[in-house]
């Protein structure tokens, strides 16, 4: 896979302010208790290992990559990119964490994820543009949807999930990001500001417009459903 450019220097750093391992309804119950204990860093700056971060936050990165529009076939690639950055930058995160106590691990990971997803999208667009005249290459990703759905995909056929993803996919990218972090992950405005590298006022404004856009799209779908049910 072609490497994705990910500007690193601007990633916000900070300490975890809440424990995903406990507050997260998606966290894998099978992750070992050792890891959950390691991820509980709200008591103070404790050393983090790559493995503990990975196993505590892989579900977080996974689901938000999907929400941000990464296809099922590409989500593992995106996760790899995100965690390669984590692997390299974790010592920095730990070192600088006490200096920026407002940020959380989730904000830091969101910052990385968002940059990787944007780069991924740019790359996909370039590939689409360049590949218009070329014969279609049998990318494994493109084979996926022609086959029977995996259990995961079947689960994702959950109607509400489908609808949510469909609406998110049609939203403006910047507004989608802020909506996902705020309404789905419930990050605070300062955390979102750190994740997106914008100021809090921008977050508030963007969030207002994002909510408006999202609501409008939901209502529109409801209206269409009601009309077709008649």
């Amino acid at each position, binding site marked *: 896979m072609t490497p994705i450019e990910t500007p690193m220097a601007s990633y916000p750093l900070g300490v975890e302010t809440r424990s995903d391992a406990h507050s997260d309804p998606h966290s*894998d119950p099978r992750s070992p208790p050792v890891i959950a204990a390691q991820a509980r860093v709200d008591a103070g700056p404790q050393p983090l290992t790559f493995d503990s971060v990975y196993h505590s936050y892989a579900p977080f990165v996974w689901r938000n990559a999907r929400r941000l529009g990464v296809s099922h076939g590409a989500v593992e690639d995106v996760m*790899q990119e995100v*965690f*390669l950055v984590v692997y*390299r930058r974790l010592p920095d995160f730990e070192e600088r964490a006490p200096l920026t106590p407002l940020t959380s691990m989730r904000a830091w990971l969101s910052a990385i994820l968002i940059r990787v997803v944007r780069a991924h999208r740019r790359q996909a667009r370039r590939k689409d543009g360049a590949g218009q005249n070329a014969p279609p290459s049998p990318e494994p990703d493109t084979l996926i949807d022609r086959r029977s759905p995996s259990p995961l995909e079947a689960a994702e056929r959950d109607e509400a*999930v489908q609808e949510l993803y469909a609406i998110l996919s049609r939203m403006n990218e910047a507004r989608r990001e802020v909506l996902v972090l705020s309404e789905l992950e419930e990050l605070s405005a300062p955390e979102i500001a750190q994740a997106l590298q914008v100021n809090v006022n921008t977050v508030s404004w963007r969030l207002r417009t994002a909510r408006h856009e999202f*609501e409008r799209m939901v209502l529109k779908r409801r209206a269409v459903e009601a009309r077709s049910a008649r």
Partner: protein
Amino acid sequence: MSELHPGARALIDAAKRGEASLPSDARARVHRSVLRRAVAVGAAVATTSTASAVSKAAALVATLSSPFAIPGVVSVVAGVAFLVLRAGSVPQGPPRPDPATPAHSIAHVVRSAPSPIPPTDATPVPPAPAQEPAPAALAPPLSGATPPSKPVVFAARLPPNLAAQSRTVAAAAVPSAGPAAVAIEPPATSLADEPLHSAPAATTLAPGPRTAPAAADLAGDLDRLRQVHAALRGGRSEEALSLLDREGKGLEAGPLAEEAQGGRISALCQLGRLADARAATARFVATWPASPLALRLRGGCEALGANSKPEGD
């Protein structure tokens, strides 16, 4: 907190309940791939690191329990563990105090970029050119204030009863491992606030003579595997297969054997050689029954194709 319209909020709540969670095989696969790519970067600059140690360590750690209990993952962690990229002195990662787990750990210190610090031993180590373009390019464009390389510390947590075992086996594995430094963590102490670099020096072993070729082997294997996967992704199954045939002996007998075999099966599937693929799968599953890849392979060519691309890149 939300100011969303109730209908929109209801949709979000319902969707959150219905969303699929990360499947465990994908979790293990990505973890392994990240470590592998991290190792690849390390291997590229590890002119004096020890790959005989890598395979030994893989065997060693694979026999030990790990929080993830997947031999493949453990092997990679072991590989990382023993790839120490500078001859001579290697700083030990600080002990990881973890009140919940009074377990011992093997601390693995890996440098992910050529170190600007001259080795403290008499052996000068010229920085090797990056042989792995993709991961190297992923290296963050570091700002001026950031040191160019930092050790990344892995701590493979072991239950106390296994920790003793690991001490023994690690000690046995190390003497032939050349300049690898194996730091067995002491039981947790209160060193949490110490920055990585100021940690006390690790147990340091004298550099051995047979280290560089082995490291080169691992780097070469990774490189060959990457070529195979690139061919597979590009739909050039014949090329992938011929690469595997040509390099097969070394690759499929080395620490990346699992991935190489997986690549071969993918190629056979892509070529429609289903009987061959089935036979190879049977061999694979017999050899590595607990491999995360085995789970996918058991589903046959269709499951393999449906499950995106081959491992390890």
